[in-house]
């Protein structure tokens, strides 16, 4: 045990020393170029029926940074990231709805076969200054619409001049990363515009068949084939008056009520969290900017006094001290964010799972229930 601890000590030490060589948690975003300023493509009027694909945005995943585990406040930031996995999908959903290019757009706990297009994403980086998502959008046939990273950088102008306070009422500032959401929405639209009417019809038909096969594999799975590229296709459709398909449609209507309810809970969480999240993001932005300025000043040797003198040493110490105090205050504020939003997160959990387990479990149970309901209904109506 002691040896293990010693090895761990060595590992941590080396991590610390080596980390000191190249770290300071670089505020510069890594990876793809930022999306820049993006104007959302909004449709005036109603889209054509076939263009109104139903979209599901699943709760995002996160990419844990192993370095973060050893940093102060790691547990607090992990909770904030967890809240963001529920918050950011709703922000994207809002943008898709505002674009007026689609059918219903719902936030879901996991992939659902009843929707035409599913969007999933992993939060690679999220601070008040940078947002980096690895996003994937796949339609019901398995065609990949998007599989790319989206990055956005917030600028000073994206935030109010002073950090807003809830004392004067709930803040409702614009999203500093709205450009990123708009870029995703526009890219989805660009893909849809490359599809023919027939393609769009096949997507919607495949959605119905997939959902039917999910409910009643014996009756409907044989309609679908998977080709060499992994895409689903069908040779024929059930008759429009197929009674089994009628049952599937009935059950789908109930399922839609269920996932609409889930969606409302995610929306409620978003509304509860947003005012505080806006403030936290602004603090985070200022912290990242401060780190960036400090690193820049240190690189340039700005304000360096005679090396080795007391004045130089005390100046270095004070800079170190204030950077640490600032970080400790930021951790404390982040902790405040977590404790203030905890009731909203708990409420989501209560509403969705009825205190009986996580939402994913409830969702899985619901799917089993639907299948059982289908079997009961088809058994009672069978001749």
């Amino acid at each position, binding site marked *: 045990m002691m040896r293990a601890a010693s090895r761990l000590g060595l590992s941590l*030490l080396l991590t*610390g*020393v080596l980390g*000191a060589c*190249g770290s300071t948690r670089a505020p510069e975003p890594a990876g793809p170029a930022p999306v820049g300023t993006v104007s959302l493509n909004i449709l005036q009027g109603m889209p054509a029926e076939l263009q109104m694909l139903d979209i599901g945005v699943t709760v995002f995943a996160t990419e844990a940074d192993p370095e973060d585990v050893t940093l102060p406040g790691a547990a607090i930031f992990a909770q904030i990231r967890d809240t963001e996995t529920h918050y950011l999908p709703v922000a994207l959903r809002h943008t898709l709805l505002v674009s007026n290019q689609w059918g219903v757009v719902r936030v879901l706990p996991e992939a659902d076969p009843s929707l035409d297009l599913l969007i999933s994403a992993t939060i690679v980086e999220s601070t008040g200054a940078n947002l980096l998502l690895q996003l994937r959008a796949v339609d019901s046939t398995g065609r990949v619409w998007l599989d790319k990273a989206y990055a956005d950088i917030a600028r000073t102008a994206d935030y109010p001049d002073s950090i807003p306070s809830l004392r004067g009422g709930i803040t409702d500032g614009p999203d500093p990363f709205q450009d990123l959401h708009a870029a995703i929405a526009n890219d989805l639209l660009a893909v849809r515009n490359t599809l023919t009417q027939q393609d769009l019809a096949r997507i919607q038909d495949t959605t119905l068949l997939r959902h039917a096969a999910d409910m009643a594999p014996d009756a409907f799975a044989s309609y679908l084939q998977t080709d060499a590229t992994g895409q689903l296709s069908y040779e024929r459709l059930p008759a429009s008056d197929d009674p089994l398909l009628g049952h599937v449609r009935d059950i789908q209507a109930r399922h839609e009520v269920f996932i609409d309810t889930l969606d409302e809970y995610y929306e409620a969480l978003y509304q509860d969290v947003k005012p505080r999240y806006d403030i936290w993001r602004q603090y985070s932005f200022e912290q990242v900017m401060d780190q960036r300025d400090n690193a820049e000043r240190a*690189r340039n040797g700005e304000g360096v006094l005679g090396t080795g003198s007391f004045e130089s040493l005390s100046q*270095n110490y004070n*800079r170190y001290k204030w950077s640490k105090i600032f970080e400790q205050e930021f951790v404390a504020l982040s902790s405040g964010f977590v*404790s*203030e939003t905890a009731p909203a997160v708990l409420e989501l959990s209560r509403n969705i799972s009825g205190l009986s387990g996580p939402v994913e479990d409830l969702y899985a149970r619901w799917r089993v229930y639907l299948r059982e309901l289908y079997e009961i209904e088809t058994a009672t109506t069978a001749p």
Partner: protein
Amino acid sequence: MSTAHPLAPHLSHRALPLLGLLCLCLFPVTSRAADEPALRDPAVSGRETPLRPLFAGSWQKDFGRSDKWEEEVQRVIDQLNREMQRQGRGDAGSIGMSGSRRGVGNLIAHARLAELITRQTTLRIMQDGNEVRIERQGDAALVCSTLTDIENTFASAHGTELCGWDRLQLVFQIVLAEGVLIEHRFSVDPGGQELSMLTSVSSGNSQPFNLRSFYTRYEAPEDGMNCVQTLSRGLVCSALDSATPGAAEPTR
């Protein structure tokens, strides 16, 4: 991301004292010696956690016993002079030689820095099963896990901090830009009534300048407030006896 840390050129020799700390950590605490302070298992029994001394409480500086930096500087200079005389490389005025003068200049700078960063007359230490938090007026809190032997606790462009346990001593090592190493070494006496903090400042190959401060336990008056950090309203405090939480005016 590719920016080289300003400390990078100093790491090879900077790492040595840190490795020293690591080596000391390798010695297992096999039995409780007679002069060891009261130990406290910070975790619930059943968890395999290291035993740590209890630092928690309010501490006030014992000026009578604590080192005075001017006297320490004089003591070190006297010692240097004696050594140089012994080596026959000069007379009592040898500190006037340019190299030695630079060395004395560094010594005084280190001594003044040590004095600057240990000016706090009181310390407030919180300790639980996970961490020790030493709050110092006018400076950042020193926070270290009680669960791990060595931990990287802070890194910025201006310096990095490690903390760890050297048997029963709690050690913080800070490496500033310019390669200055500051070490704080905390220990408590067996009765748990006296706290010692040994602060060392060194750079390059220089001899560390050591300044020892002693603290005695005292009962800090209760402030009667229960404060909770919030994001939207800052630090929200309420009187402990108040039946209505949040009765006091929020403060930032």
